[in-house]
């Protein structure tokens, strides 16, 4: 209550610059104290950041130039060899990386595309819903807040050979589509299934962003389009969609980045299998770092992590260029 009265008392008199000028009247005294407080206030954040952020980044960069298994007291400096091994030189790792890169590329194209194709219409329709819009939005959001191992296990359960998805197909007369090995057990269906689940997880945020965008569109624009004889489809495809191009770019970027770097779902649901069909670059990085027992692959893991970082950076830059040129 005190604060709101203070606000009320202060706001009308202010012209934005008044306070600043007042502060400058006693430069020495004020600034000295303000500077000290400034450093005190950021000290905990900075300290944590130096240890957990800056230090680990340098450590990781350094690791990417060495050969080490994490246990021996010394490591062997190998320069750029790790990068070369991953990209082309090593007969062991390069082919695995190439296959994982292809899988990752597939995910990077399919997930953002499908997420946009599902969430845009969904947001348009939800935006026009008169009743239950709030309830529906909450329901649609549940996959996002619960994202994690619990939900992935529930998916595993329904995708089992004896699971609910096969049962559903049988019930609606599409028994021929059933997967007797389970949807994750069949090498041909494992990846598409995971893509569908990733889209399912990605739709909530995308839908929310589209909804925010839709609510910011000037309604008179849409009325004008309809007066010109544009129907519902025309209005949404020719007027609304271009207006939300920026939102689409953000959604694409988020999903591409997630597809490049995220691998939790792969680790939990298939661990790259069956037969390497769902191995992606993020998972390969994790595998090299934590699932190789005593083999000296920590350097390779770090190098692959940095390659992913640069790929994500490149995508972000391209994305920004493309969206900037469009309008």
């Amino acid at each position, binding site marked *: 209550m005190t*604060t709101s009265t*203070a606000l009320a*008392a202060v*706001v009308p008199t202010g012209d*934005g610059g008044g*306070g600043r000028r007042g502060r400058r009247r006693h430069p020495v005294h004020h600034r000295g104290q*303000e*500077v000290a*407080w*400034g450093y005190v*206030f*950021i000290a905990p*954040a*900075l300290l*944590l*950041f130096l240890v*957990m952020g800056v*230090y680990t*980044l340098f*450590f*990781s960069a350094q690791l990417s130039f060495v050969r080490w298994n994490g246990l021996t007291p010394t490591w062997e400096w190998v320069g750029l060899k790790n990068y070369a091994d991953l990209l082309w030189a090593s007969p062991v790792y390069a082919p695995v990386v190439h296959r994982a890169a292809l899988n990752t590329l597939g995910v990077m194209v399919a997930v953002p595309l499908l997420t946009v194709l599902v969430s845009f219409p*969904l947001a348009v*329709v939800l935006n*026009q*819903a008169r009743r239950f819009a709030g309830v*529906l939005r*909450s*329901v649609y*959001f*549940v996959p996002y*807040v*619960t994202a*994690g*191992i*619990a*939900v992935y*296990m*529930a998916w595993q*359960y329904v995708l089992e050979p*004896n*699971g*609910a998805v096969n*049962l559903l197909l049988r019930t609606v007369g599409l028994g021929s589509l059933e997967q007797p090995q389970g949807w994750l057990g069949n090498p041909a269906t494992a990846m598409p299934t995971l893509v569908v689940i990733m889209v*399912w997880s990605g739709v*909530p945020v995308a839908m*929310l962003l589209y909804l925010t965008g839709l609510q910011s569109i000037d309604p008179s624009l849409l009325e004008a389009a*309809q007066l010109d004889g544009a129907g*519902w489809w025309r209005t949404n495809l020719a007027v609304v969609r271009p207006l939300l191009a920026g939102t689409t770019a*953000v959604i694409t970027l988020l999903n591409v980045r997630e597809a490049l*770097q995220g691998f939790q779902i792969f*680790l939990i649901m298939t661990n790259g299998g069956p037969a390497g069909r769902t191995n992606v670059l*993020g998972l390969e990085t*994790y595998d090299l*770092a*934590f699932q190789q027992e005593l083999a000296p692959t*920590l350097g390779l893991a770090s190098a692959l*992590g940095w390659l992913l*970082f640069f790929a*994500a950076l490149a995508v*972000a830059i391209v994305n920004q260029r493309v969206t900037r040129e469009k309008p």
Partner: protein
Amino acid sequence: MTTVTDRTVPDAPAVQRTPRRRRTPAKVVVARSVVAVLLAGYAVVSLYPFLWMVSAAFKTQQEVIQGGHLIPHDPTLSTLVDTWAQLHFFDYFLNSLKVTGLTTLGVVVVYSAASYAFAVLRFPGRQAFFRLFLVLLFVPGVVTLLPIVLLENQMGILGTHLGLILPFVNGTAPLSILLLTNSFRSLPDELRDAARVDGAGELRIFTRIYLPLARPALITVALLTAIPTWNEYLLSRVSLNDPATFTLPIALQQLQSSNVVQYNQLMAGALIVVIPVIILFLATQRYFVNGLAGAVKG
């Protein structure tokens, strides 16, 4: 003008204002039904795995093996009770609560202070430090996972809850600082000046004036921290070894890998993991939804 719109375009917004007694054209009825079916259909898709999760959690081992029906014929609470008590999910729940609670508290305390400095105070290097924090936004988690584990091993905190909390707190730095700094910046400078004239010190201005006014942003940051932390799996999996330290996601993973998968137990465990987040989300979704949209766009 409105009447013209009304007649030529039946589903224009103006139609809402027309009196009920006028009959709705068949085309509109069809369109509305299609919309309703689509919306309800996607609601079912959204909840699909959860329906089966709940179903299995109330089934016996025998019934879950039989499969084939959503509604349990003979619903039982014993699966949930066993998982909660005998499989120690209560202990894991407390561990998760501790890690999530302390991480959230740490984030709110550390980054509200830092953001106050970035938004309000002026000191050399302010801009540079601010940008330094934001750079972290672009670094993939997989790059830092390995060095964090190696570093914590040296420090002797690997496998402890502190060893989870510190990197979790730091991981939220860019987003938290961005949201809180924006929120503090939107408050008028005169607030602080008036308080100073009244003789309030910096700490008092921060805790008594700025923090209460930034409450919505603080809640958003707390939620955007708490929910992913509750679900966190990767760092926990590679660092926690002692069952006494397990959080819920790790307990679930152990349950799956330790014996032949008993889906009723597994789904009961999964239900224990998701229920608190869903309740938290439903109770606070206003902050959550606004904050998330702001965070992603900003």
